[in-house]
């Protein structure tokens, strides 16, 4: 479990969490970037940039 840095809601985390993943908080909808996995550290995800894509 981790705590949403925006709303304080609880986030369920899965075992193979990867640094660099984005999680959506089910409570407030915030996008959170996984900065570290052991221990889990979250931050607000960067905003969409114009050159993002495939």
């Amino acid at each position: 479990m981790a705590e949403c840095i925006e709303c304080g809601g609880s986030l369920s985390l899965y075992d193979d969490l990867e640094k660099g993943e984005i999680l959506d908080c089910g409570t407030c909808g915030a996008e959170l970037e996984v900065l570290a996995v052991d221990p889990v550290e979250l931050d607000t995800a960067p905003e969409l940039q114009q050159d993002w894509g495939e």
Partner: protein
Amino acid sequence: MNGMTVGLLYSRIRHDEKLLLSALRERGHTVEKIDVRDQCFGLSEPPSAFEEVDVLVDRCLATSRSTYVTRFAEAYGIPVVNSAETAQVCADKVQTSLALERAGVPTPETTVAFTPESALEAVEAFGYPCVLKPVVGSWGRLLAKVESRSAAEAILEHKATLGHYEHSVFYVQEFVDKPGRDIRIVALDGEIVAGMVRSSDHWVTNAAAGAETAAFEGDDQVHELVARASDAVGGGLLGVDLMEVGTDGESTEYTVHEINHTVEFKALNETVPVDVPGAVVKWLESVVAAAESDSNSGEAETFDTETDALDTGTETFETETDALGAETETLDTKTDAFGTGSTTSEAETLTPDTAEGGGD
């Protein structure tokens, strides 16, 4: 082959990267995840994170980072997938269109202009509807189907005021009246891994925009077209997008409207029985083997996918055989890969990243 060390260049781990990471680890390879936001690139000295890797795999979400980091990798003599040339051509729709046209690959008629006034002339020349696209961008963002002169004037005025100079490179394209769907093919140096159709009532049929998907089996014409399109942009791991433009009742004509160099394949992987990431990893093994062979023979200090394809016919044949073999093998293993259930269960406990677009 023995385990290789793969440097995965990223700034965001999407579902596609998780699939790739799993496939690499399942086959016994070591993965160094390299967040490009943390790195500094000298002109001759690579970042320490690059030192031990056998190959770099560019999965950068930002096109600007992708085009530069592949250049640096090649400058350092480190094999990189895709090549800098491929990244540069695919990152820019103008360059992609020119490359396809030069190679004789069917692609929608396109005109480029640098002012709203000349762009309006181009729009009027096409007639209505026609399409305005940003030269850099993805996921169907900022595409405009222009249906009247007054709409064209408004869109062009808005684009001119968006701020970034790229929005003042006006890319005007014919509107292709496709049959409510387009086709996404993932290919490895021109060899098709798998394909799907993306259907939608909306004229934009990206899976990221909510299109429904179904497996697509290309005929010989599609295989040949994809191979030529791949060659045109320098080869590598590519997403080639096609539209059906007509049929005479027996055969269908296609046009290639986009090629993606950091292709997203999660939707494709969920649609087809082929283990797409597994095939990619097997192909990467062949890429590293070819690079090591080149290095040992002293024929090339830097790796270049296109040069290998053109100049080392025997190696290319072996590579293609491996890639095809990978596809066959992975058909059997896909169930196992997904049977582990980790990614499926993740979706149930956490919403994957979808809010900012993404998806193939």
